[in-house]
Protein backbone atom coordinates (compact mmCIF):
# COMPACT_ATOMS: atom_id res chain seq x y z
CA UNK A 1 0.00 0.00 0.00
CA UNK A 2 0.98 3.59 -0.43
CA UNK A 3 -0.01 6.86 1.18
CA UNK A 4 -3.33 8.27 0.05
CA UNK A 5 -3.20 11.40 -2.05
CA UNK A 6 -5.22 14.15 -0.40
CA UNK A 7 -6.18 15.88 -3.63
CA UNK A 8 -9.90 16.05 -4.41
CA UNK A 9 -11.62 15.19 -7.69
CA UNK A 10 -13.58 17.82 -9.58
CA UNK A 11 -17.37 17.64 -9.22
CA UNK A 12 -18.83 16.11 -12.38
CA UNK A 13 -20.60 18.41 -14.80
CA UNK A 14 -24.22 17.91 -15.82
CA UNK A 15 -26.05 19.41 -18.76
CA UNK A 16 -27.32 22.95 -18.26
CA UNK A 17 -30.61 21.71 -19.70
CA UNK A 18 -33.29 23.53 -21.68
CA UNK A 19 -34.02 26.07 -18.94
CA UNK A 20 -30.49 27.38 -18.31
CA UNK A 21 -31.78 30.84 -19.24
CA UNK A 22 -33.99 31.16 -16.18
CA UNK A 23 -30.98 30.56 -13.95
CA UNK A 24 -28.36 32.61 -15.79
CA UNK A 25 -30.26 35.23 -17.83
CA UNK A 26 -33.74 35.22 -16.29
CA UNK A 27 -34.92 38.53 -17.78
CA UNK A 28 -34.02 37.26 -21.25
CA UNK A 29 -36.20 34.22 -20.48
CA UNK A 30 -39.13 36.38 -19.40
CA UNK A 31 -38.56 35.77 -15.71
CA UNK A 32 -38.56 39.39 -14.61
CA UNK A 33 -38.38 40.94 -11.20
CA UNK A 34 -35.97 38.69 -9.36
CA UNK A 35 -32.80 40.63 -10.29
CA UNK A 36 -32.59 44.24 -11.56
CA UNK A 37 -30.82 43.03 -14.72
CA UNK A 38 -29.19 39.90 -16.10
CA UNK A 39 -25.55 39.19 -15.25
CA UNK A 40 -23.03 39.79 -18.04
CA UNK A 41 -25.33 41.87 -20.24
CA UNK A 42 -22.44 43.89 -21.67
CA UNK A 43 -18.81 42.98 -22.40
CA UNK A 44 -17.91 46.68 -22.41
CA UNK A 45 -19.22 49.98 -21.07
CA UNK A 46 -19.38 53.22 -23.06
CA UNK A 47 -15.94 54.70 -23.50
CA UNK A 48 -13.98 51.46 -23.67
CA UNK A 49 -10.71 51.89 -25.54
CA UNK A 50 -10.19 50.13 -28.85
CA UNK A 51 -12.25 49.08 -31.82
CA UNK A 52 -15.85 48.19 -31.03
CA UNK A 53 -16.82 45.08 -32.97
CA UNK A 54 -19.89 42.93 -33.43
CA UNK A 55 -19.61 39.19 -33.89
CA UNK A 56 -22.65 37.27 -35.11
CA UNK A 57 -23.03 33.58 -35.71
CA UNK A 58 -24.98 30.43 -35.09
CA UNK A 59 -24.23 27.08 -33.50
CA UNK A 60 -25.22 24.07 -35.58
CA UNK A 61 -25.90 20.57 -34.28
CA UNK A 62 -24.92 17.43 -36.17
CA UNK A 63 -28.02 17.62 -38.37
CA UNK A 64 -27.22 21.17 -39.53
CA UNK A 65 -29.91 22.73 -37.36
CA UNK A 66 -29.08 26.12 -35.82
CA UNK A 67 -29.66 25.50 -32.11
CA UNK A 68 -32.17 27.86 -30.51
CA UNK A 69 -31.43 27.10 -26.87
CA UNK A 70 -27.64 27.51 -26.49
CA UNK A 71 -26.12 29.94 -24.00
CA UNK A 72 -22.66 31.42 -24.40
CA UNK A 73 -20.15 33.08 -22.13
CA UNK A 74 -17.19 35.04 -23.43
CA UNK A 75 -14.05 36.17 -21.61
CA UNK A 76 -11.36 38.35 -23.11
CA UNK A 77 -8.63 40.92 -22.56
CA UNK A 78 -9.04 44.63 -23.23
CA UNK A 79 -7.58 46.35 -26.30
CA UNK A 80 -4.10 46.39 -24.77
CA UNK A 81 -4.13 42.76 -23.71
CA UNK A 82 -5.01 43.18 -20.03
CA UNK A 83 -7.75 41.17 -18.33
CA UNK A 84 -10.18 42.77 -15.89
CA UNK A 85 -8.59 42.59 -12.46
CA UNK A 86 -5.04 42.96 -13.80
CA UNK A 87 -3.16 46.16 -13.10
CA UNK A 88 -3.78 48.83 -15.72
CA UNK A 89 -6.79 47.07 -17.25
CA UNK A 90 -9.35 49.31 -18.96
CA UNK A 91 -12.09 49.87 -16.33
CA UNK A 92 -14.68 50.11 -19.13
CA UNK A 93 -13.99 46.55 -20.26
CA UNK A 94 -15.82 43.93 -18.22
CA UNK A 95 -14.32 41.22 -20.38
CA UNK A 96 -17.17 38.87 -19.52
CA UNK A 97 -20.41 38.60 -21.47
CA UNK A 98 -23.37 36.22 -21.44
CA UNK A 99 -25.50 35.89 -24.54
CA UNK A 100 -27.90 33.41 -26.04
CA UNK A 101 -28.97 32.10 -29.39
CA UNK A 102 -32.12 33.82 -30.64
CA UNK A 103 -35.15 31.68 -29.87
CA UNK A 104 -36.54 32.09 -33.40
CA UNK A 105 -33.43 32.20 -35.63
CA UNK A 106 -30.67 30.63 -33.54
CA UNK A 107 -28.36 33.57 -34.22
CA UNK A 108 -26.24 35.14 -31.49
CA UNK A 109 -24.60 38.56 -31.34
CA UNK A 110 -21.66 39.70 -29.22
CA UNK A 111 -20.69 43.38 -29.12
CA UNK A 112 -17.32 44.07 -27.54
CA UNK A 113 -13.89 45.60 -28.18
CA UNK A 114 -11.35 43.70 -30.17
CA UNK A 115 -8.92 42.30 -27.61
CA UNK A 116 -5.18 42.84 -27.74
CA UNK A 117 -2.53 40.14 -27.88
CA UNK A 118 -1.77 38.50 -24.52
CA UNK A 119 1.49 37.10 -23.16
CA UNK A 120 2.26 33.42 -22.72
CA UNK A 121 4.06 31.71 -19.86
CA UNK A 122 6.93 30.90 -22.21
CA UNK A 123 7.49 34.58 -23.01
CA UNK A 124 5.68 34.59 -26.34
CA UNK A 125 2.35 36.00 -27.35
CA UNK A 126 -1.11 34.75 -28.11
CA UNK A 127 -2.90 36.34 -31.04
CA UNK A 128 -5.99 38.39 -30.10
CA UNK A 129 -8.84 36.05 -29.24
CA UNK A 130 -11.99 35.70 -27.18
CA UNK A 131 -12.48 32.60 -25.03
CA UNK A 132 -15.94 31.11 -25.49
CA UNK A 133 -17.82 28.65 -23.27
CA UNK A 134 -20.99 27.01 -24.59
CA UNK A 135 -23.74 25.20 -22.70
CA UNK A 136 -27.09 23.79 -23.81
CA UNK A 137 -29.42 20.85 -23.44
CA UNK A 138 -27.59 17.77 -24.74
CA UNK A 139 -24.14 19.22 -23.95
CA UNK A 140 -23.04 17.24 -20.89
CA UNK A 141 -19.96 19.33 -20.14
CA UNK A 142 -19.54 22.94 -21.26
CA UNK A 143 -17.61 23.30 -24.52
CA UNK A 144 -14.56 25.57 -24.64
CA UNK A 145 -13.47 27.19 -27.86
CA UNK A 146 -11.94 30.49 -29.06
CA UNK A 147 -12.73 33.25 -31.52
CA UNK A 148 -9.68 34.55 -33.42
CA UNK A 149 -9.87 37.20 -36.17
CA UNK A 150 -8.97 36.81 -39.83
CA UNK A 151 -7.55 40.34 -40.05
CA UNK A 152 -5.00 39.74 -37.27
CA UNK A 153 -1.62 38.03 -37.50
CA UNK A 154 -2.38 34.55 -36.19
CA UNK A 155 0.81 32.97 -37.52
CA UNK A 156 2.67 32.75 -34.20
CA UNK A 157 -0.25 31.81 -31.96
CA UNK A 158 0.76 28.75 -29.91
CA UNK A 159 -2.73 27.25 -29.73
CA UNK A 160 -3.48 27.55 -33.43
CA UNK A 161 -0.03 26.10 -34.11
CA UNK A 162 -1.03 22.94 -32.24
CA UNK A 163 -3.81 22.10 -34.69
CA UNK A 164 -2.44 19.31 -36.88
CA UNK A 165 -5.13 19.44 -39.58
CA UNK A 166 -4.41 22.95 -40.85
CA UNK A 167 -7.80 23.18 -42.55
CA UNK A 168 -9.40 23.06 -39.10
CA UNK A 169 -7.62 26.25 -37.97
CA UNK A 170 -10.25 28.18 -39.94
CA UNK A 171 -12.97 26.93 -37.58
CA UNK A 172 -11.55 29.22 -34.86
CA UNK A 173 -11.19 32.32 -37.04
CA UNK A 174 -14.01 34.87 -37.35
CA UNK A 175 -14.56 36.14 -40.90
CA UNK A 176 -14.70 39.89 -41.47
CA UNK A 177 -18.01 40.82 -43.11
CA UNK A 178 -17.80 44.62 -42.86
CA UNK A 179 -16.28 47.44 -40.85
CA UNK A 180 -16.20 46.15 -37.29
CA UNK A 181 -18.41 43.18 -38.27
CA UNK A 182 -17.43 39.53 -38.00
CA UNK A 183 -19.13 36.19 -38.57
CA UNK A 184 -18.33 33.17 -36.38
CA UNK A 185 -20.29 29.97 -36.88
CA UNK A 186 -19.86 26.94 -34.65
CA UNK A 187 -20.35 23.35 -35.83
CA UNK A 188 -20.69 20.58 -33.25
CA UNK A 189 -20.15 17.79 -35.77
CA UNK A 190 -19.41 17.11 -39.43
CA UNK A 191 -16.80 18.16 -41.97
CA UNK A 192 -16.71 21.71 -40.57
CA UNK A 193 -16.61 20.62 -36.90
CA UNK A 194 -15.22 23.42 -34.73
CA UNK A 195 -12.05 22.71 -32.77
CA UNK A 196 -13.06 22.41 -29.11
CA UNK A 197 -10.50 22.86 -26.38
CA UNK A 198 -9.32 21.17 -23.21
CA UNK A 199 -7.13 23.63 -21.34
Amino acid at each position, binding site marked *: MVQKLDTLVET*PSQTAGPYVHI*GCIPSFAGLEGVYPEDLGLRAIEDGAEGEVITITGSIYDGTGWAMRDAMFESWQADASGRFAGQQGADPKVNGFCRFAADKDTGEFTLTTVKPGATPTRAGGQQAPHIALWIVARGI*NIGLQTRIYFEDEDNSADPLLARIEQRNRVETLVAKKTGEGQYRFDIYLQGAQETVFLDL
Partner: protein
Amino acid sequence: MSDQAYIDQGPLIPRNRAAHPVPYDPDYKTSVPRSPNQPLLSMESTLSEETGPRFGHSMLGPLDNNLILNYSKDAAKPAVGERILMHGRVLDEMGRPVPHTLVEIWQANAGGRYRHVKDGYLAPLDPNFGGCGRTLTDENGCYEFLTIRPGAYPWPNRGNDWRPMHIHISVFGHSFGQRLITQMYFEGDPLIERCPIAATVKSRSQLDRLVAPLDMAKARPLDFLAYKFDIVLRGRRQTMFENRMEGL
Protein backbone atom coordinates in the same frame (compact mmCIF):
# COMPACT_ATOMS: atom_id res chain seq x y z
CA MET B 1 1.15 43.99 -29.13
CA SER B 2 0.99 43.26 -25.45
CA ASP B 3 3.40 44.87 -23.05
CA GLN B 4 2.08 42.69 -20.26
CA ALA B 5 4.06 40.24 -18.20
CA TYR B 6 2.61 36.83 -17.46
CA ILE B 7 1.27 36.88 -13.92
CA ASP B 8 1.94 33.28 -13.03
CA GLN B 9 -0.11 31.59 -10.32
CA GLY B 10 0.49 28.22 -11.90
CA PRO B 11 -1.46 26.48 -14.65
CA LEU B 12 -4.81 24.84 -14.03
CA ILE B 13 -4.59 21.12 -13.30
CA PRO B 14 -5.70 19.36 -16.51
CA ARG B 15 -9.30 18.23 -16.37
CA ASN B 16 -9.79 14.53 -15.59
CA ARG B 17 -12.43 13.80 -18.23
CA ALA B 18 -13.14 10.37 -16.71
CA ALA B 19 -14.59 12.17 -13.69
CA HIS B 20 -17.17 13.84 -15.93
CA PRO B 21 -20.15 12.64 -17.97
CA VAL B 22 -19.49 11.17 -21.38
CA PRO B 23 -20.43 13.76 -24.04
CA TYR B 24 -22.13 11.16 -26.26
CA ASP B 25 -24.74 8.90 -24.70
CA PRO B 26 -27.49 7.37 -26.88
CA ASP B 27 -29.79 7.01 -23.84
CA TYR B 28 -29.77 10.82 -23.59
CA LYS B 29 -30.94 11.42 -27.12
CA THR B 30 -30.17 15.12 -27.46
CA SER B 31 -26.51 14.41 -26.74
CA VAL B 32 -26.25 12.40 -29.98
CA PRO B 33 -26.26 15.38 -32.40
CA ARG B 34 -24.74 17.75 -29.83
CA SER B 35 -21.50 15.97 -28.87
CA PRO B 36 -18.33 16.74 -30.83
CA ASN B 37 -16.97 13.77 -32.75
CA GLN B 38 -13.37 14.95 -32.94
CA PRO B 39 -11.02 14.82 -29.96
CA LEU B 40 -10.59 18.00 -27.92
CA LEU B 41 -7.36 19.97 -28.41
CA SER B 42 -5.49 19.68 -25.10
CA MET B 43 -2.93 22.26 -24.03
CA GLU B 44 -1.62 23.87 -20.84
CA SER B 45 -3.93 26.65 -19.67
CA THR B 46 -3.14 30.25 -20.61
CA LEU B 47 -4.10 33.62 -19.15
CA SER B 48 -7.47 33.35 -20.90
CA GLU B 49 -8.36 30.35 -18.73
CA GLU B 50 -6.42 31.35 -15.60
CA THR B 51 -8.09 34.74 -15.22
CA GLY B 52 -11.83 35.18 -14.96
CA PRO B 53 -14.67 37.51 -14.06
CA ARG B 54 -15.15 38.44 -10.40
CA PHE B 55 -18.41 39.59 -8.89
CA GLY B 56 -18.97 41.62 -5.76
CA HIS B 57 -21.63 41.90 -3.07
CA SER B 58 -22.91 45.14 -4.56
CA MET B 59 -24.73 43.19 -7.28
CA LEU B 60 -26.63 41.05 -4.78
CA GLY B 61 -30.06 41.85 -3.41
CA PRO B 62 -31.00 40.76 0.13
CA LEU B 63 -33.38 38.03 -1.11
CA ASP B 64 -31.23 36.73 -3.96
CA ASN B 65 -30.48 33.46 -2.14
CA ASN B 66 -34.03 33.02 -0.81
CA LEU B 67 -36.11 31.39 -3.54
CA ILE B 68 -39.07 31.09 -1.17
CA LEU B 69 -39.46 34.87 -1.18
CA ASN B 70 -37.36 36.37 -3.99
CA TYR B 71 -40.16 36.23 -6.55
CA SER B 72 -43.14 37.44 -4.49
CA LYS B 73 -40.90 39.70 -2.33
CA ASP B 74 -43.61 39.38 0.28
CA ALA B 75 -43.17 37.39 3.50
CA ALA B 76 -46.92 36.75 3.48
CA LYS B 77 -46.65 35.05 0.06
CA PRO B 78 -44.03 32.29 0.32
CA ALA B 79 -43.53 29.67 -2.40
CA VAL B 80 -45.45 26.42 -1.96
CA GLY B 81 -43.45 23.31 -1.12
CA GLU B 82 -41.21 21.52 1.33
CA ARG B 83 -38.91 24.17 2.77
CA ILE B 84 -35.22 23.29 2.53
CA LEU B 85 -31.84 24.83 3.17
CA MET B 86 -29.34 23.92 0.45
CA HIS B 87 -25.84 24.59 1.65
CA GLY B 88 -22.24 23.51 1.18
CA ARG B 89 -18.71 24.57 0.41
CA VAL B 90 -16.91 25.33 -2.82
CA LEU B 91 -13.37 23.91 -2.76
CA ASP B 92 -10.65 23.35 -5.33
CA GLU B 93 -8.84 20.08 -6.05
CA MET B 94 -6.17 21.01 -3.49
CA GLY B 95 -8.88 21.18 -0.84
CA ARG B 96 -8.65 24.94 -0.52
CA PRO B 97 -11.89 26.90 -0.09
CA VAL B 98 -12.92 29.09 -3.03
CA PRO B 99 -14.09 32.31 -1.34
CA HIS B 100 -16.19 35.11 -2.83
CA THR B 101 -17.28 33.23 -5.92
CA LEU B 102 -20.70 33.43 -7.54
CA VAL B 103 -23.06 30.45 -7.22
CA GLU B 104 -26.32 30.54 -9.21
CA ILE B 105 -29.14 28.00 -9.02
CA TRP B 106 -32.38 27.34 -10.91
CA GLN B 107 -35.08 24.76 -10.45
CA ALA B 108 -38.66 23.64 -11.03
CA ASN B 109 -41.36 24.42 -8.48
CA ALA B 110 -42.76 21.90 -6.00
CA GLY B 111 -44.95 20.39 -8.71
CA GLY B 112 -42.06 19.93 -11.16
CA ARG B 113 -42.86 22.90 -13.42
CA TYR B 114 -40.39 25.58 -14.55
CA ARG B 115 -41.40 29.19 -15.04
CA HIS B 116 -40.32 29.08 -18.69
CA VAL B 117 -42.31 29.50 -21.91
CA LYS B 118 -41.07 26.13 -23.18
CA ASP B 119 -42.30 24.19 -20.14
CA GLY B 120 -45.86 23.01 -20.75
CA TYR B 121 -46.07 20.34 -18.04
CA LEU B 122 -49.51 19.78 -16.47
CA ALA B 123 -48.37 20.84 -13.01
CA PRO B 124 -49.41 24.43 -12.30
CA LEU B 125 -47.12 27.41 -11.90
CA ASP B 126 -46.83 28.69 -8.35
CA PRO B 127 -47.65 32.41 -8.48
CA ASN B 128 -45.10 32.97 -5.71
CA PHE B 129 -42.19 31.00 -7.13
CA GLY B 130 -39.75 32.24 -9.78
CA GLY B 131 -37.11 29.53 -9.66
CA CYS B 132 -33.71 31.23 -9.69
CA GLY B 133 -31.31 32.43 -7.02
CA ARG B 134 -27.70 33.45 -6.54
CA THR B 135 -25.16 34.11 -3.83
CA LEU B 136 -21.44 34.57 -3.21
CA THR B 137 -19.45 32.11 -1.13
CA ASP B 138 -18.06 33.55 2.11
CA GLU B 139 -14.37 33.66 3.03
CA ASN B 140 -14.47 29.92 3.84
CA GLY B 141 -16.10 29.00 0.55
CA CYS B 142 -19.51 28.38 2.18
CA TYR B 143 -22.82 29.16 0.51
CA GLU B 144 -26.49 28.65 1.33
CA PHE B 145 -29.89 28.96 -0.29
CA LEU B 146 -33.34 28.79 1.21
CA THR B 147 -35.70 27.20 -1.27
CA ILE B 148 -38.39 24.55 -1.71
CA ARG B 149 -37.73 21.00 -2.80
CA PRO B 150 -38.41 20.83 -6.56
CA GLY B 151 -40.75 18.18 -7.90
CA ALA B 152 -39.75 15.41 -10.32
CA TYR B 153 -40.95 15.96 -13.88
CA PRO B 154 -41.39 13.96 -17.09
CA TRP B 155 -39.44 14.86 -20.22
CA PRO B 156 -39.47 13.73 -23.83
CA ASN B 157 -36.60 11.27 -24.31
CA ARG B 158 -37.34 7.54 -24.15
CA GLY B 159 -40.93 6.42 -23.69
CA ASN B 160 -41.32 7.32 -20.03
CA ASP B 161 -38.37 9.25 -18.65
CA TRP B 162 -38.62 11.40 -15.53
CA ARG B 163 -36.03 13.72 -14.07
CA PRO B 164 -35.28 13.04 -10.42
CA MET B 165 -35.77 16.01 -8.12
CA HIS B 166 -32.82 18.29 -8.87
CA ILE B 167 -31.45 21.79 -8.59
CA HIS B 168 -29.23 23.18 -11.38
CA ILE B 169 -26.06 24.90 -10.14
CA SER B 170 -23.61 27.20 -11.90
CA VAL B 171 -20.26 28.09 -10.27
CA PHE B 172 -17.58 30.48 -11.53
CA GLY B 173 -14.48 29.97 -9.37
CA HIS B 174 -11.70 32.47 -9.95
CA SER B 175 -10.59 31.32 -13.40
CA PHE B 176 -12.65 31.06 -16.56
CA GLY B 177 -11.25 27.53 -16.96
CA GLN B 178 -12.90 26.49 -13.67
CA ARG B 179 -16.38 27.26 -14.99
CA LEU B 180 -18.83 24.49 -14.07
CA ILE B 181 -22.54 23.80 -14.37
CA THR B 182 -23.93 20.73 -12.63
CA GLN B 183 -27.04 19.41 -10.88
CA MET B 184 -27.73 18.43 -7.29
CA TYR B 185 -29.91 15.38 -6.62
CA PHE B 186 -31.53 14.40 -3.33
CA GLU B 187 -30.65 11.45 -1.12
CA GLY B 188 -33.12 8.60 -1.43
CA ASP B 189 -34.76 9.58 -4.72
CA PRO B 190 -35.48 6.34 -6.65
CA LEU B 191 -35.54 8.26 -9.95
CA ILE B 192 -31.78 8.95 -9.83
CA GLU B 193 -31.05 5.33 -10.80
CA ARG B 194 -33.48 5.59 -13.72
CA CYS B 195 -32.31 8.94 -15.11
CA PRO B 196 -30.37 8.88 -18.39
CA ILE B 197 -28.91 12.34 -17.68
CA ALA B 198 -27.55 11.29 -14.28
CA ALA B 199 -26.30 8.11 -16.01
CA THR B 200 -24.06 10.10 -18.36
CA VAL B 201 -21.66 10.10 -15.36
CA LYS B 202 -20.18 6.61 -15.72
CA SER B 203 -18.20 6.49 -12.48
CA ARG B 204 -20.45 5.38 -9.62
CA SER B 205 -18.40 7.27 -7.03
CA GLN B 206 -18.59 10.43 -9.13
CA LEU B 207 -22.37 10.13 -9.58
CA ASP B 208 -22.71 9.70 -5.81
CA ARG B 209 -21.07 13.10 -5.42
CA LEU B 210 -24.06 14.72 -7.11
CA VAL B 211 -26.44 13.35 -4.47
CA ALA B 212 -26.87 15.66 -1.49
CA PRO B 213 -27.39 13.96 1.89
CA LEU B 214 -30.07 15.06 4.30
CA ASP B 215 -28.25 17.16 6.91
CA MET B 216 -30.24 17.29 10.13
CA ALA B 217 -27.48 19.26 11.85
CA LYS B 218 -28.39 22.23 9.67
CA ALA B 219 -32.15 21.68 9.63
CA ARG B 220 -34.10 24.20 11.70
CA PRO B 221 -36.85 22.68 13.89
CA LEU B 222 -40.39 23.60 12.82
CA ASP B 223 -38.99 25.46 9.80
CA PHE B 224 -36.83 23.69 7.19
CA LEU B 225 -34.86 20.53 6.38
CA ALA B 226 -31.31 20.84 5.08
CA TYR B 227 -29.29 19.18 2.30
CA LYS B 228 -25.53 19.52 1.98
CA PHE B 229 -23.86 19.86 -1.40
CA ASP B 230 -20.13 20.45 -1.65
CA ILE B 231 -18.63 21.43 -4.98
CA VAL B 232 -15.03 20.88 -6.09
CA LEU B 233 -13.60 23.03 -8.88
CA ARG B 234 -10.36 22.57 -10.78
CA GLY B 235 -7.23 23.50 -8.84
CA ARG B 236 -3.95 25.00 -9.93
CA ARG B 237 -0.54 23.43 -10.00
CA GLN B 238 2.09 25.43 -8.21
CA THR B 239 5.44 24.05 -7.18
CA MET B 240 8.67 25.56 -5.99
CA PHE B 241 9.87 25.01 -9.53
CA GLU B 242 7.09 27.18 -10.94
CA ASN B 243 7.89 30.89 -11.30
CA ARG B 244 11.55 30.22 -11.90
CA MET B 245 13.67 33.24 -12.61
CA GLU B 246 14.90 34.13 -16.07
CA GLY B 247 17.92 32.02 -17.00
CA LEU B 248 17.45 29.36 -14.33
